[in-house]
Each structure stands twice: as structure tokens, then as C-alpha cells.
């Protein structure tokens, strides 16, 4: 029985990782194709569907951690994935005014390369039990460039959406109401900044340490 379950788990994780991989691959492919053929203004409208699907699928990763399917703790995955979901749904999807901005291209290219490597890394590991060194190296090295470009694009996109948040009052609740509650999406963006900014050097340092640990270990082996 335990054997069947672990086989099922493995099968599910292989399928999950490679399906999401395909989603991000499509994002990268369509983004590059659009950039080459028509221009950055069309990038978002051409990738919207696979981007929303692939990024939302990451929500399942939180569940995987909760039910114990994978070992990564939710304290690590939750902040990363929720900040991505915020940018994808709360900024890009919600404010069409920013969808034509050139930063969208650097954002989705940084994200998709990172995710293509990450999901193929996990997909290979689940399927074969190990990964070739070059893939391991890519998994623990591309962030050196792609994390700074990705995170600065994320912040730039939130910043670009600020005037439209204020103007439209979208997702905002105003007093008076029976429950004496108000919510201002515009100010919420500043709260997001306040959480983001201190987290950046912390996460980068953490990944540098992971890189050192993993790559030195695999060289010895």
C-alpha cells in the first residue's frame, strides 16, 4: 500500500512539474516571438493565458508543502508565491494600463527562464532520482542575474500601477459601512513595498548560501 502511494506521489509530482514547465516554456517562447515580430506592447496580451495558468499553478506548491508531499516548508514558499500572485493578478491582470509597459518583457523573461530551469530540475529529479550537473549548476546560478532583474521589474511594475490604483479605487473599501472597515489598495501597495524591500537582501543571501552548499557538495561527490 505504501509502495503504491509513493509511486502515485512520484507520478503526480513528475506530471505537475513538467506541465508547469510547459506553461512557462510557452510564456518564454511567446514573449520572445512577440518581441521579435511585433513589439513589447503586445507581449502581455499574447502570453496572458499561459502566464496566469502557470503562475497560479504555483499555488499548488503551497498545498504540497502543507500536506507533506514535498519537504520545503510553507514559511519559505508562501511569501515567494504570494508576492508573485500579487504581481500577476493584483497588478498585471488588474490594471490594463500597465500591460503595454516595456518592463513587462524583462519581468516575464526573468521569471520564465528561472521557472523553466526550476521545474525541469524538479521534474528530472522526481523522474530519475538525480539531475545532471549542468542542470544543478543552472538551478543554483541563474538567480545571480535573474533574481535582481526579476525583482526590480516586479517593483517597477507595482510602481507603474500606483497612479491607476489611486485613480480607480479598485479593490478599495471606504467608510462608512456597517462593519466600520476600510481598505485602500493604493496604500496596501506601500505595505507590500515595506515587506518586499527588507526581504530582498535576505533572500539573495540565503540563495547564495544554498548555492555554495549545494555546488561544493556535488563537486566532492
Amino acid at each position, binding site marked *: 500500500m505504501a509502495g503504491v502511494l509513493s509511486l502515485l506521489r512520484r507520478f503526480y509530482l513528475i506530471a505537475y512539474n513538467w506541465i508547469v514547465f510547459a506553461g512557462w516554456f510557452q510564456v518564454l517562447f511567446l514573449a520572445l516571438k512577440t518581441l521579435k515580430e511585433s513589439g513589447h506592447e503586445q507581449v502581455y496580451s499574447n502570453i496572458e493565458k499561459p502566464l496566469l495558468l502557470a503562475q497560479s499553478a504555483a499555488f499548488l506548491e503551497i498545498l504540497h508543502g502543507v500536506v507533506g508531499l514535498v519537504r520545503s516548508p510553507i514559511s519559505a514558499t508562501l511569501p515567494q508565491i504570494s508576492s508573485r500572485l500579487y504581481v500577476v493578478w493584483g497588478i498585471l491582470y488588474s490594471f490594463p494600463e500597465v500591460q503595454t509597459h516595456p518592463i513587462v518583457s524583462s519581468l516575464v523573461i526573468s521569471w520564465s527562464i528561472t521557472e523553466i530551469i526550476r521545474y525541469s530540475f524538479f521534474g528530472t529529479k522526481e523522474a530519475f532520482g538525480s539531475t545532471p550537473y549542468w542542470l544543478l549548476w543552472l538551478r543554483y546560478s541563474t538567480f545571480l542575474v535573474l533574481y535582481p532583474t526579476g525583482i526590480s521589474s516586479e517593483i517597477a511594475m507595482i510602481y507603474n500601477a500606483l497612479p491607476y490604483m489611486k485613480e480607480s479605487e479598485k479593490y478599495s473599501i471606504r467608510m462608512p459601512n*456597517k462593519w466600520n472597515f476600510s481598505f485602500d489598495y493604493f496604500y496596501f501597495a506601500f505595505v507590500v513595498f515595506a515587506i518586499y524591500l527588507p526581504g530582498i537582501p535576505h533572500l539573495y543571501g540565503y540563495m547564495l548560501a544554498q548555492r555554495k552548499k549545494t555546488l561544493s557538495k556535488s563537486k566532492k561527490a
Partner: protein
Amino acid sequence: MKVLVTTRSGRELIDGGLVLDSSATVADLQEAIHKRIKKYYPSRQRLTLPLQPGSKEKPVVLQYKKSLKEYTTGNPNSDTITVVFKDLGPQVSYRTLFFFEYLGPLILYPLFYYLPVYQYFGYKLEKRVIHPVQTIAMYYWCFHYFKRIMETFFIHRFSHATSPLSNVFRNCAYYWSFGCYIAYYVNHPLYTPVNDLQVKIGLGFGLIMQISNLYCHVILRNLRSPSGNGGYQIPRGFLFNIVTCANYTTEIYQWLGFNVATQTVAGYVFLIVAASIMTNWALAKHRRLRRLFDGKEGRPKYPRRWVILPPFL
């Protein structure tokens, strides 16, 4: 007796060690360290026995009341002991910590009521009508924090334990910002009150709970000896006969009363956060009491009780 004091990296903290009386206690040792290095007052020091290199076990922490002789168990005749010193950082007493935690909400809340703060949030104040519930809620809130400060000075008995200074900043950030968050909505110019009956029920119930909470604190005080180190006892009497942590139960219910009367989302958020923090403490205390009073070897058995929120937990 000779005591070698090393840091965790193995360096000698006091060159040549200390020579103490053979009947010296850990407290005497801490005083001696303090005398040599002024900034390390006793509550800042954590003294442990050295571990074998590579050991994953937790080190034995030296209890300040015990005699040093008790820790030379490996070799009772040995006249030399090595202890490992750790600097816990600046410490404050729990009384100081509590005082600053409660002072913030006591001062900040009325500012929202009395001062024209809302004009800085873009509201015209000529239109502000103060509802009776806002006035009563302000007095209720201030009474609550005034009571807590008075209890801190005149009722609570604290053990010798101290708290790191950094906790003062963390806890004040929690109490002060939640205080402002709730005060902002209850005193808002566009505040919508609930009906009179609901206000009366909420605040009446809350007041009864506050008084019960005071009584719970008096019961807890009498469990501890004046010196503050009497160890654990089974709390009895009043609501403690039903719930282990009746002091938290009444605290939670009095916030519930406040929220029923004022009806703000901010207040309910605070209630949920506070209740979950207190539930963690209550579960830990309940477990500790159950373990200490297990009914074996003449020890009393801990009675069956709710932990914090009957009839759920």
C-alpha cells in the same frame, strides 16, 4: 573552589578563572563575574556546563539557587569546574516590559478621540458627530489599560526571570500599532454605531469580564510566594475550577464585549490574534501542569479542566 569561565568559542572570559568558597552557589558565581566585568549583571548571564565537542544534546543550564558543588557530579572531589558563559544581551524586568506595552494604547487611543487627527487623513471635521458609544468605548478602553498597569505594579508577582530588551520593542510595536489601528476606526468621523441594546450588552458583559479578570489575577498572585520562586501550583477557586487559564478566558471575553459594542473589523482582527497567542501560552501551561501533577508518587493529579475557551478547548 576554582571556576574556569569560558565563552562558547572556548576562549577564557576571565583570565585565570575565579576562586570561590566551596559552599558557593551559582548566584555567587554570577555576582563574582559581574564584579569582574561590570556590564554582565547576573540576569544577563547564561551559564551552562560544557558539552562534549560534536554533541547534539542541549547543555545543562546552571540554576542560580543551586550550589556549584551540585554541578561537579562527574567528579565530586574535583575542586575545579568549567562553565560556559553566554551573554543574553541587555535585560529588563517584566514589570518594565508590561508597563511600556500598556502605556502606548492608554495614551494613543484618546488622541484619536480628542485631537483632530482625521483632518490629516483628508476628512472634514466640522461634520464629525461623536456618538455616545465612542465616548463610552474610550473610557472602557482606558480603564482596561489603566487596570493592566495597576495590576503590573500592585498585583502580579514576577519570578526572577527577565526579558531581553529587544522584546520591549517587539511587544510595543504589537500593542501600540494595534491600539492605533482600532482607535482609528472606533473614533472615525464616518463611524457607524450599532443599536443601543447591543452596546449595553457588549460593554456590560465586557465590564463583568474585566472585573472577573482582576479577581483571577488576585487568585494567581496568592498562588505564588512573595519571594516569587514558589514553583508551580494547581490554580483553584472561582473560574479556575473549570478552566486552567481563566485569566486568559476573561481577557478574551472582555475584548469580545468591546467588539460587540463597537463593531469594527480591526477589533475582531485583534481579538483573533490575541486569542491565538494566549491559546499557545495556555496549551503550554496546561501541558506543564498535567506533567507536573501526574498523580504518581504522592503528587496530586491535575483535575480535568478546559484549557482556555470552554466548551471548545
